[in-house]
């Protein structure tokens, strides 16, 4: 008899399941409504990892045949990015490069090419592990999401709250009005700070600061602002203080303490504000 050593996480722990290969959003929703023990699979990186630790499902709904989930298009006032869009495609799709060049540039720093080819923006958002980047980046960009359920059809939701298990993430929507997105990931995975703002008539608008790595789920705060790049440089320290004081206490774990994280939220936010001001 062959014996095999397996650890707590192993591909040998993946429980049996049946497969579904739908071709439409409606079909996916029907599968999800059928049983709570159904999971959808995009790139599969997180799902397979969870299953290796013992999480099991009766049915896996494989999404690659649903063309509507992979579309990227510009509606004229917002960019619609299908949930199945890979990180790699985010970095090189012409519409994203044209409308959201900061986003495309930042996404080249996410993970490594192997993960970027397989992992999807939707999967990253739904998994939303504390150090994942999609949620804080999209919060800073002022994005929203479209979800679909068998009972309610499609609906637009804010990103701050988690997506319910029975819902299918269809796409992400980001306004195409001029905006900037900056990030400091130098302390990733302990902490990453994203800064987004709308630019109007050459002036900086409300500041959206989103923080990943410091909470169980990324948090954001919006600071009303209207000013020039020069004035933002002068205001950076006080705004960063306000951001750190407004956000809830970060978590403490093996990577960093709550006190350290709060201090670094202030430091990284100030750096990003100064950088934004200098680039205007």
């Amino acid at each position, binding site marked *: 008899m062959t014996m095999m050593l397996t*650890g707590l*996480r*192993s*591909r040998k722990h*993946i*429980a*049996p*399941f*049946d*497969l579904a290969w739908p071709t439409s959003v409606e079909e996916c929703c029907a599968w999800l409504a059928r049983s709570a023990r159904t999971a959808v*699979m995009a790139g*599969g*990186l997180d799902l*397979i*990892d969870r*299953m*290796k630790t013992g999480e099991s499902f009766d049915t*896996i709904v*494989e999404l*690659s045949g649903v063309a509507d989930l992979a579309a990227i298009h510009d509606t004229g006032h917002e960019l619609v990015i299908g949930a199945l869009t890979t990180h790699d495609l985010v970095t090189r799709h012409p519409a994203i490069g044209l409308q959201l060049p900061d986003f495309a540039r930042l996404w080249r720093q996410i*993970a*490594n*090419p*192997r*993960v970027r*080819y*397989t992992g999807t923006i939707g999967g990253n958002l739904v998994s939303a592990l504390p150090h994942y980047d999609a949620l804080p980046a999209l919060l800073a960009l002022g994005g929203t999401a479209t979800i679909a359920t068998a009972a309610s059809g499609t609906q637009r939701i804010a990103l701050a709250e988690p997506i319910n298990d029975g819902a299918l993430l269809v796409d992400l929507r980001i306004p195409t009005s001029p905006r900037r997105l900056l990030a400091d990931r130098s302390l990733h995975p302990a902490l990453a700070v994203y800064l987004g703002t709308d630019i109007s008539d050459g002036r900086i608008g409300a500041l959206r600061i989103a923080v990943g790595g410091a909470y169980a789920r990324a948090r954001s705060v919006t600071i009303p602002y209207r000013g020039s790049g020069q004035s933002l440089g002068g205001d950076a320290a006080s705004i960063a203080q306000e951001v750190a004081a407004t956000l809830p206490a970060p978590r403490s774990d093996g990577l960093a303490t709550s006190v350290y994280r709060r201090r670094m939220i202030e430091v990284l936010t100030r750096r990003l504000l100064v950088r934004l001001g200098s680039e205007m």
Partner: protein
Amino acid sequence: MRTVPLEMTVNGVSRQCDIEPNVVLADVLRDGFGLRGCKVACDQAVCGACTVLIDGRPVAACSTFAFATRGRSVETIEGLASDHVLHAVQTSFLENYGFQCGFCTSGMILSIVALLRTHSTPDETLIRDWLGGNICRCTGYAQIVEAVQLAAATMRGHP
């Protein structure tokens, strides 16, 4: 659990088999087809030892369900040499001491092959970005980066 038919191309050869949906690609390659160059180390898509190419792109075979490769082309380290002549990246790793224990090497070489197919003159930053998904605990990477640069020069026809 119902088995599903799997038809794919492995190293240029058409393969068919029936698989259980919960089987990952690494196990089909290793146990089904005897392609043991696909190593499994971390078993969580981090270390890169199990890297193979699917339609030319690097993928972690330990964290890819085999059913997801239906109709696609898989390349493993065993398919890289041509007519018993090593690929330029393999030769460069040998000549420049790009490995010691060798456990990570097949995955690393396949990642680099994918890189050099799309970027003929990668700079060191790009090489290190691509190597970010392949962990080596022996060499310290300096010789690996050098091996990649020299392989790139060879493939451009400037040895």
